[in-house]
């Protein structure tokens, strides 16, 4: 590591330990690091937005290429700022309406296709066979139906419906258990990364 990297990683190590100090209790070092990252993150995003978004998408089309049509979305974007005024906040509804309308219109067909049609197709299109794949697919059909029945509250969960609903909640609990197990792996990975970083810094500092 060069001297600059050693100093930079030293700052990083110090800030890492500031955050870890929260595990004992809340303290000024933790608060300092927490607020520092909020300020730095906001500043980073501001400059990123300005140089890589505002300049090529707003400034250059209007000011350098004189594409007047872009004045319309620019005005719609600027009137969003009226949200800060109690008297004029209603003007921002025009921009929001434009965005919400387009987003909703596009979402209807694609949400149905992605979340419903393709999933239904994958559930019901199975070859009837007695091999492992066939039996697994049959189990999937039963489990999906049972889980859907669990979430159907227009009918009382009694009798056969109740049995299917109970099977459904058991299937859902298996799903949640799998999710928890994978979550533990994910969270541990975040901690391991910091431990490996601190180890690497100690080696660079003392081990050469």
């Amino acid at each position: 590591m060069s001297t600059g990297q050693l100093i930079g990683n030293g700052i990083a190590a110090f800030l890492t330990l500031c955050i870890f100090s929260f595990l004992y209790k809340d303290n000024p070092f933790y608060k300092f690091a927490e607020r520092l990252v909020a300020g730095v993150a906001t500043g980073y995003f501001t400059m990123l937005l300005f140089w890589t978004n505002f300049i090529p998408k707003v400034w250059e089309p209007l000011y350098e290429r004189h594409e007047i049509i872009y004045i319309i979305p620019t005005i719609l974007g600027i009137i969003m700022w009226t949200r800060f005024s109690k008297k004029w906040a209603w003007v921002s509804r025009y921009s929001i309406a434009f965005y919400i309308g387009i987003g909703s219109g596009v979402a209807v067909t694609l949400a149905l296709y992605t979340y419903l049609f393709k999933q239904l197709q994958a559930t019901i299109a199975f070859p009837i066979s007695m091999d492992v794949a066939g039996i697994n697919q049959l189990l999937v059909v039963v489990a999906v139906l049972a889980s859907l029945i669990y979430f159907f509250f227009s009918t009382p969960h009694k009798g056969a419906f109740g049995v299917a609903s109970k099977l459904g909640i058991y299937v859902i609990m298996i799903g949640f258990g799998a999710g928890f197990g994978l979550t533990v792996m994910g969270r541990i990975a975040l901690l391991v990364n910091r431990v490996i970083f601190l180890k690497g810094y100690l080696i660079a500092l003392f081990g050469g």
Partner: protein
Amino acid sequence: MNIFEKIMKVDRRWVYLAIGLAVSIPAVYELVATYILKKENTTINIPITPSPEVKKVYDFVESMKPGEHLFICVDYDPSSMAELNPMTTAIVNQAFAKDIKIIFVTLSQFGPGLVEQITSSLAAAHNKVRGEDYAFLGYRPYPAITILAMGVDFRVPFPEDYYGTPLDSLPIMDGIKNFNNLKGVIELTSGNTADFWITYGNGRYGFPLALGITGVMSANYYQYLSSDQLLGIIPGVKGAAEYEELVGFPGDGKAQMAYQVIAHAVILVFIIISNIAFFGTRKRKGGMEGGAQ
């Protein structure tokens, strides 16, 4: 308070200390083995068997020919780079080694810094030239709308790349208008952009899509594998380690596995102890109530 009740009511800071120490064990071992015991190879290797969903992503990239274009979307921020950086590095290493051209984009506001970190080191290692062998288009807000716009023409949301060069000036973008001109998309994310890519990307434009996601999310995306909306999934740091095993180079994913083993062992022991204490307390309360009657 009996022993079981004491176990159940232990201060959580002792649990934090136990986990902290557990995760530090491999690090301490490596430091002691290298600098005090002067051993040569101190890395703890954990056997890894790649899972089918990870192998599908690897096979997809492996099947690409030199000169073909791969689209990598780096949609995560520093909070999840521990899990996702290893898989990103492994994929980029594999693609660069095969002379596959890569187009990077990020829909996460802190993604540009991470893409820069990865591309600057790996491009130099593989002698890849920006603009010819890879391009970084930059960041845009509103992921759903950006994906829809890219499906028409990359130049609609990105008239220039991240460095201000017009896309039409980049040799890598010759003949590349939208997703139809690419072999496929690999989305690496820790948030809901995975849903946007599946819905607005693969749902509208039908291109091959693979996901690299965090462990927290991975259980929620297997249904897309079976419905062929995804060609593969790399789930979390274990998936990253499996991918590194397939690509054949040691990376941060495999390096983490020893730590994962010990931490998981400690947590499993915690769960067992806590449940023994729970049942012990319940039995004792049941016995006391029976005695009282």
